[in-house]
């Protein structure tokens, strides 16, 4: 009997850069192009990881969960070895069959019907904020509109009280940095959050949940044995950490793209039912969670290359969403294009469970703006923050004006 031959494809090409250096984080679109151009999948020695930014490969790595596991964490750091030993997240960082069971329960708790039931509250809050801002004519859309909106509607839906909600902003910042390496960005963000963790953790206690929220429903699922009690608090944490900064990012980017593409704002004014489309197209171009990570399980061939076992894979959703091989005129904000297949929410078994919440949030804000203003334009320069994996505006000066005034 012949010994198994060491055959097969070659190792992926080497891309000798640091994707988490300021140079690339300040210019993500440039990084996306460098990554895509370097190959279908590449090896990045600096972080001992594979990386891919081509649409086809990102899409298939997310679909092939057996080869590309989530169980070693969806961060660059491996949760089972090295510096970052921690318990994997109870829904995001598990593979089937455990994942299937948990997801089934959560799909029920956060079903599209439940989310539709929140529409009235979300729209009322958007209406209240926008109606107060429009008479001012000039405002910062991130600090005065989007952040207050998300900090109101999401924790309300979950059933948190009002106290200290602003702490969710630095905690959201940490979430985006923690997915990447333990660089200065991460450490700084961790230092800022350290004094807030006691507050944060107290918010997941059963006694802290207001009646009627989905936090309470998750606790109730532990009474029936559907969810192990020790997983409840990490689950609630996952929703808050996963839903706050990404939600703020998506809506802010949409407003930025509309204000800086007046032809698209005019299209939308003429046809307000394009609002959800305007939101999804913004997510495609300015993907809030730019990259997520998987870990190879076993050695296998992928995209014509031989991959090694137990290596982290950076899946750059943002680069895939601008891949010219998939998207015509990929860098253009076009609210009439079909965004079908964009991967801003991921795809496959781990596809974002909060995506219908995000769409409702985006639609509520845009609906209120469309009702109250005819003009939506830039009033200065926008600012993004630096983050290892998040694309997040921190300032967006806008000018609005109603014809009625």
């Amino acid at each position: 009997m012949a010994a198994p031959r060491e055959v097969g494809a070659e190792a992926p090409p080497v891309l000798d850069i640091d994707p988490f250096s300021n140079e690339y984080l300040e210019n993500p679109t440039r990084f996306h192009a460098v990554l895509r151009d370097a190959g279908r999948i590449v090896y990045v020695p600096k972080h001992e990881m594979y990386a891919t930014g081509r649409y086809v490969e990102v899409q298939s790595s997310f679909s092939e969960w057996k080869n590309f596991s989530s169980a070693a964490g969806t961060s660059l750091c491996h949760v089972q070895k090295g510096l970052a030993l921690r318990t994997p997240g109870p829904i995001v960082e598990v593979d089937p069959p455990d994942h299937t069971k948990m997801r089934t329960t959560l799909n029920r708790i956060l079903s599209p019907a439940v989310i539709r039931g929140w529409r009235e509250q979300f729209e009322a809050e958007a209406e209240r904020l926008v109606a107060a801002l429009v008479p001012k004519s000039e405002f910062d859309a991130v600090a005065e509109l989007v952040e207050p909106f998300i900090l109101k509607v999401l924790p309300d839906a979950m059933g948190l009280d009002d106290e200290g909600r602003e702490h969710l902003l630095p905690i959201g910042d940490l979430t985006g940095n923690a997915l990447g390496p333990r660089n200065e960005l991460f450490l700084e963000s961790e230092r800022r959050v350290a004094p807030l963790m006691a507050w944060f953790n107290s918010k997941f206690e059963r006694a802290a949940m207001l009646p009627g929220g989905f936090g309470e429903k998750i606790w109730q699922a532990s009474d029936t044995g559907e969810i192990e009690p020790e997983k409840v608090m990490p689950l609630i944490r996952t929703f808050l950490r996963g839903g706050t900064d990404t939600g703020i990012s998506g809506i802010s980017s949409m407003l930025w793209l509309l204000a800086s593409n007046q032809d698209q704002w005019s299209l939308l004014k003429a046809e307000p039912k394009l609002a959800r489309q305007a939101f999804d197209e913004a997510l495609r171009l300015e993907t809030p969670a730019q990259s997520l990570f998987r870990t190879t399980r076993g050695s296998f061939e992928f995209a014509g290359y031989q991959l090694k076992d137990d290596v982290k894979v950076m899946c750059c959703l943002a680069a895939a969403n601008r891949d010219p091989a998939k998207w015509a005129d990929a860098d253009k904000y076009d609210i009439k294009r079909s965004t079908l297949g964009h991967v801003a929410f991921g795809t496959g078994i781990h596809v974002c469970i909060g995506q219908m919440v995000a769409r409702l949030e985006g639609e509520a804000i845009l609906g209120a703006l469309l009702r109250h203003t005819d003009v939506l334009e830039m009033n200065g320069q926008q600012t993004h923050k630096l983050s290892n994996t998040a694309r997040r505006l921190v300032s967006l000066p806008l000018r609005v004006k109603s014809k009625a005034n």
Partner: protein
Amino acid sequence: MPKIVFIELDGNRKEVTATSGTPLMNIAIENDINGILGECGGNAACATCHVYVDENYLGLLPAPEPAEEQMLEATSSERLPNSRLSCQILLTEELDGIVVTCPMTQN
């Protein structure tokens, strides 16, 4: 190529052909069918590609997977015995001529 008949939400009838193996939701989006959204991109995670399948073809479809079953419990328009998610129906030669009707609302 097999033919699909979409009844759009305004009652308009649109006949299109497509390659076998393609999900009906994708065919609907490509052909701009009025009444199918497919917001989650085919992951059975949003229930916005809900359709009513002609009884004559219903029996030819594999039973819904648990994920689809859950979403069918949460559709915006009423779930009927012939309700399916069009993203979970792969076109086959056998389905040639299938008629699917769009519900009045998807979200």
